[in-house]
């Protein structure tokens, strides 16, 4: 079954995983592709585990079910690794990105022997440094675009600037911080991604 590139987001209510999925749909749409971005709600409260999804395809997307065999999983909250089977159904040739200060090696034992790409991003550190606050969704969005190779860095950065200018029209002071968070994430991941390219080449 082909429904394009499929992404599953794991987060907690209030962290912005849903917003990140919707923003990703937004930027992928700008590349002329078909997109879906949708949340799956459990109990409606802050802190409860939530899941959000993206499909990105060159063809019209008809399927309206959740995603069970994703190409990419993004974990916005590291504490979920103990309660949610985040690698369930994740394709072997796919990848997982985890928001954590820990290294890839420290995280691996928590991933049920997952064999695909494993990337860690310290989104809290990036966000605090760039924005002065812990809003992990901007770094995790950048990480999803970089690891999923959804679009070129420059095009993504340009689209996100336009998107933030619209979204934060009433608080323009946060735009630069968010842009900085995106750039920092790309820089952090650059090395890891280069290593992977070499390995798969």
């Amino acid at each position, binding site marked *: *079954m082909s*429904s394009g590139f499929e992404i599953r987001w794991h987060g907690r209510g209030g962290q912005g995983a849903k917003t990140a999925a*919707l923003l990703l*749909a*937004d930027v992928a*749409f700008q590349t002329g592709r*078909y*997109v*879906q*971005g*949708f*949340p*799956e*709600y459990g109990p*409606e409260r802050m802190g409860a585990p939530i899941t959000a999804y993206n499909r990105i395809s060159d063809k*019209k*997307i*008809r*399927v*309206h*079910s*959740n995603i*069970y065999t994703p190409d990419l999983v993004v974990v916005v909250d590291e504490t979920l690794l103990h309660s949610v089977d985040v690698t369930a159904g994740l394709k072997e040739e796919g990848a997982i990105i985890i928001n954590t200060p820990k290294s890839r090696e420290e995280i691996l034992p928590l991933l049920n022997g997952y064999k695909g790409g494993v990337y860690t991003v310290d989104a809290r550190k990036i966000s605090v440094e760039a924005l002065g606050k812990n809003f992990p969704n901007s770094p995790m969005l950048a990480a999803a675009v970089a690891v999923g190779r959804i679009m070129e860095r420059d095009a993504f950065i340009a689209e996100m600037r336009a998107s933030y200018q619209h979204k934060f029209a009433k608080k323009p002071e946060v735009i630069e911080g968010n842009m900085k968070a995106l750039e920092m994430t790309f820089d952090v991941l650059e090395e890891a991604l280069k290593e992977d390219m070499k390995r798969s080449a």
Partner: protein
Amino acid sequence: MAIKDRMSGNEAVSYAIRQINPDVMPAFPITPSTEIPQMVSTYIANGEMDTEFIPVESEHSSMSAAIGAQAAGARSLTATSSAGLALMWEELLLAASNRMPLAMALVNRTLSGPININCDHSDGMGARDTGWIQIYAENNQEAYDNFIQAYPIAEHENVHLPIMICQDGFITSHAVENIKLLEDHVVKEFVGEYRPEEYLLNPGKPIAVGPYSVTNYAMEAKKNQEIALENSKAVILEVAKRFERISGRSYGLFEEYKTEDADYIMLLIGSAAGTAKQAVHNMRKEGKKVGVIKLRVFRPFPAKELAEALRNCKAVAIMDRCESYNGNGGPLGSEVTAGLFRHKVSIEAVNYIYGLAGRDFTVEDVYDIFEELSDAVENGKEVEQYQYVGLRK
């Protein structure tokens, strides 16, 4: 020129409402339709439309106010879901029997209990005999397109009935997808101005709305209402033709996908139809003769048209996203099998209940159901005629 955009189902309906710019919108928020009055209020606050928005204290009042405004001569609408629709019950019947062509954006959500916010069709199906026209959407595009067609259908002189434009809660209401929008002036021209012939605030031509009717006349009033609903079928098709001319997108009472030579057909309503179409697309590659019928118009119910569309297949899976608690099947199952019997179509017809309270329905579920149908026909396997899909074992 079509405008390519991406938005959620709720955004799409709100966008259509802005373009139509009706006169009055009373509303009370309820998940997952809350965004619609919220977005419309924002459009109003920003001066992008001048609909009179009435914040009310309950859905009973929002429907009452919508009826009042419509009776006074204003084009009105509201939006709701689930328990909100249930609270409107008495007023839904009044809107239809008083022949008020008002519109409702219904974002389908299950009815309690257990209390749950997710999608099924129990709210809309619960209101199926209230006299409203009901049109269901597969995705954001259809929710948008159907809403633009709502008033031209409802206000037609042969119809004069209220209309519900339904979409699946969260699955389409909160999913951002690609969409093609029409330009404002194209929509405004298509929908036109509302010019009622008779209305309350019409000095010199007084009418009464909702008076007591003695038994000698009440039955005729009900029959006239029924005739209007029957009339709406032709009007729905006529409006769809006109809509195709401005949009390039064609609509009927239902959509047939790869059914011409299909032995096995799945009949369903709403967003799950897209999932079923993808499954059929995949199965066709393996040479399996399967197809999908997506029912768009549930009221008026196209019993004869559906019976004809199913006449040449061997078996149909009738999918209900709603339990009727009648011990015999769901609403779609009951009505389709009655239609098949009346039109002398004798095929295997299995009624499946799926997706209650947001339970996911997948491409694999579709494969399994077609497998079961073919097993029944090819191998004579006895199949439970009314059963659940995706239930915890």
